[in-house]
């Protein structure tokens, strides 16, 4: 056949997408691999020293913390989810979304607040002393808030909503018929709950629990403030105080084993979850009417976590902010707030742009490679901030040294540190950690656009990029904005990476609050803390709206 050949290869243009995706995935994982690499090839090996001194303490403390928070969030999360979905009692409709409010509260902020009111000099103990006429510490016993137990309580109060959300969704998805079948076969409501409803909801609950435990591992502010020696604190200590990078990397690697276990449990649960959705049909939920004392008990059971985890700390902060209001300090806080916003907007925007590229190339190119690349790039969400911070420091430090070396050799001058200790370093850390958020959201909204849209646009003469620009982007606008917002909020709240990676003389709201609270000056930082909580409330409201809109019988998006 002597007909003219096609001008160019069809795959050529699309390959740009593949390359971009793989490069992004590589960049997102470099810090993690850098940590592992450095841990295995330490310059100055303090591993034996760590093993003989602090390691077992870190491991046991971290395990106890995880066990405590896990148990606490399970009890509160599953219990309230069951009450809210299956029973009718005063205030139930409010609690449906109100249970989520503590999500807005970072653990470190609630820790500062409770320390302030529960410590020896705080109002609670002072009132007790006055009431009973005690004169000193030795005359009575009061729980020490700055302890492992205190840390468990604080994290439980703000992390239980993860379990609540997923347990509630699982209960809603269950066919009520299964539960009723159990009861008609002679099992009472309690036994039916434990033998039918709970096992069916288990995959969802395990996902929620894994997320809780990842957050627990990630926490730095609370354990630092309470001096509870977990891995996060240990990494920080070895890095900053012992000035040993390899040691920090080695601790971080051990911590990654914990993370790997959690990620595995989560993935496993997600796989199983699919088989557990027995029926897609919703029936009206039975709605056991709880009257009198039982109704009151249910109301209190739901009210207590919300009061303790959100309302009370917010009120305290409001009061402090009012008492300690100082125009001078407010201007300073505004400056930090601007820093926070700048960083978070930057990270949010880049995270979403990157997510769009990745999700879209997976869509148009398909194939295993891109799917794996996207999952790998999203790994950062499970990795604790302290570990990522170490990784980012190692990578950027080496990069700076490399560039510096080349510049000296070839041009005879030193470039110094270009990336380390700059906004770029913090942003990079944020991106690695929160890329999963934006990617997940963008993938979800892109998934709702039928593939024939792509085909229609392409066959009408628009290329892959124009199709994205004129068809997909307008259609997924809402999802894109949500993604920016989610990353933005998490960046605003982020503490461990910001503390380690922030430039000299640069503070965000979070690090400012951390510093002031550590100096026992929470009053002065109350305004900043409130701002963080205020920002955190935004996604909670969004989530609440989704929940309010989804009623049994209508398929709700959660």
């Amino acid at each position, binding site marked *: 056949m002597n007909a003219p050949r096609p001008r160019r290869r069809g795959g050529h243009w699309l390959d740009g997408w593949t390359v971009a995706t793989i490069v992004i995935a590589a960049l997102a994982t470099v810090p993690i691999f850098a940590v592992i690499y450095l841990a295995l090839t330490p310059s100055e090996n303090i591993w034996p020293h760590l093993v003989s001194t602090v390691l077992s303490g870190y491991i046991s403390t971290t395990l106890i913390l995880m066990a405590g928070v896990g148990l606490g969030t399970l009890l509160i999360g599953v219990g309230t989810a069951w009450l809210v979905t299956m029973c009718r009692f005063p205030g139930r409709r409010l609690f449906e979304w109100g249970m989520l409010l503590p999500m807005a509260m970072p653990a470190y902020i609630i820790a500062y607040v409770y320390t302030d009111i529960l410590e020896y000099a705080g109002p609670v103990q002072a009132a007790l002393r006055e009431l009973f006429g005690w004169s000193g510490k030795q005359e009575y016993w009061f729980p020490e808030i700055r302890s492992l137990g205190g840390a468990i309580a604080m994290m439980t109060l703000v992390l239980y909503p993860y379990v609540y959300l997923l347990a509630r969704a699982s209960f809603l998805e269950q066919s009520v018929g299964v539960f009723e079948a159990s009861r008609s076969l002679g099992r009472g409501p309690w036994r039916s709950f434990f033998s039918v409803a709970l096992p069916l909801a288990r995959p969802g609950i395990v996902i929620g629990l894994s997320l809780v435990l990842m957050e627990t591992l990630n926490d730095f502010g609370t354990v630092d403030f309470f001096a509870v020696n977990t891995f996060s604190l240990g990494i920080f200590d070895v890095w900053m105080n012992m000035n040993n990078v390899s040691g920090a990397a080695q601790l971080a690697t051990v911590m990654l084993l914990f993370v790997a276990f959690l990620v595995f449990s989560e993935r496993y649960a997600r796989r199983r979850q699919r088989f557990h959705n027995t029926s897609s049909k919703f029936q009206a939920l039975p709605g056991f009417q709880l009257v009198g004392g039982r109704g009151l008990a249910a109301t209190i059971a739901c009210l207590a976590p919300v009061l303790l985890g959100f309302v009370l700390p917010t009120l305290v902060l409001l009061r402090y902010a009012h008492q300690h209001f100082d125009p001078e300090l407010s201007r300073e806080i505004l400056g930090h707030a601007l820093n926070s916003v700048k960083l978070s907007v930057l990270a949010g925007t880049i995270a979403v742009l990157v997510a769009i590229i990745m999700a879209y190339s997976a869509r148009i190119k398909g194939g295993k490679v891109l799917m794996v690349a996207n999952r790998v790039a999203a790994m950062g969400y499970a990795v604790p901030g302290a570990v990522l911070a170490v990784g980012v420091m190692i990578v950027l430090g080496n990069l700076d040294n490399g560039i510096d070396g080349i510049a000296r050799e070839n041009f005879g001058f030193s470039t110094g540190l270009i990336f380390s200790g700059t906004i770029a370093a913090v942003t990079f850390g944020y991106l690695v950690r929160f890329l999963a958020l934006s990617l997940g959201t963008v993938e979800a909204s892109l998934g709702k656009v039928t593939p024939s849209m792509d085909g229609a646009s392409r066959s*009408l003469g628009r290329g892959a990029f124009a199709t994205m620009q004129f068809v997909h982007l307008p*259609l997924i606008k809402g999802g894109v904005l949500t993604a920016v917002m989610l990353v933005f909020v998490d960046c605003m709240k982020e503490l461990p990476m910001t503390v380690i990676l922030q430039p000299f003389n640069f503070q965000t709201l979070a690090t400012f609050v951390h510093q002031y609270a550590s100096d026992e000056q929470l009053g002065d930082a109350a305004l900043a803390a409130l701002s963080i909580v205020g920002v955190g409330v935004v996604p909670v409201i969004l989530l609440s709206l989704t929940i309010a809109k989804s009623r049994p019988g209508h398929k709700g998006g959660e």
Partner: protein
Amino acid sequence: MVGIHHAYGTTKVLNNISLTVPAGELVCLLGPSGCGKTTLLRIAAGLEQLQAGSVTIDETVIAEGAAQLPPEERRIGFMFQDYALFPHLSVLDNVIFGLFRQDRRTARARAMEMLDQVGMVQHAEKYPHMLSGGQQQRVALARALAPEPRLVLLDEPFSDLDTNMRARIRQQTLTVLKQNNVATLMVTHDPKEAMFMADRIKVLGDQGRILQSGRPADIYYKPTDEYVARLFGPMNMIDGVVEQGGLKSSFGTLALEDPTVVEGAAVRVLIRPEGIILSKGDDDGGAPVEILSAHLLGDSSIVRFKVRSGINSGSEFHLRMPGAFDLTEIGQIWARVDPRHAFQYPQNQ
């Protein structure tokens, strides 16, 4: 398209398919769902990677081996089964979407002209979700035709419409396609739709092989394959052995057209329900029958009967006849076979 093969994993969906759509003609791929029809369209449009074979349009190879022109450079229109109208664009902007190479005014004029052809001008400013299924279908057609494609692909274009609407839209679509004199490749699982629309029909079988191609009349009157014959509904079946160049039956010796069939070969004759004619006398050598039941469908009736004598005595058959059948009419009835509706195939196919 020449020698197209396609497989998903180890499942072959297209097996050595070759077809040509002559200018201005409508070719219809007819086959059961899941037989790879849509895949073939997607390959033609460049939405699916070609695995083997080649695609040529206007004597230009647009896909062969690794060299595949991206869909946006093929100038092939595609109308999707779900219409795929862009929900964020108005009807007019949907049609203008493919006209971006023209200046805005020319594009608008062309889009309005197309909307006029499909009778949707008055809905130009509406959004897709405000339209009925039939209206969406017409907008999708206008959108596909607006950039004057060299070929239009229609994927089950009428499957989402209700029966009453379907006949009207089918007629209108055909009119618009002929008016624009555009080569069209359409896929459907509905034989009547294919008969109505097509200049040529290609019947695709289960293994993604073309079983027969030809004009609609060929497919109906000369089905070369038992599968093709059965496409149009349940058939009457007589199995037997060839004797003296024919198959002996209660309806007389059914002559076999195929000269290659040897004496003693096992053959199967399929008779369309509309190919059995009842009469009150045995003037044409019919078989005496006993009527079992009659079902009025509206424009025609299905009559089930049993043969009373001869080789097929006791066998049940069914026929279709225009109008109603009066069961109260008493008297012996004979049935004979119209040879144009009887087809012969080797057995155990």
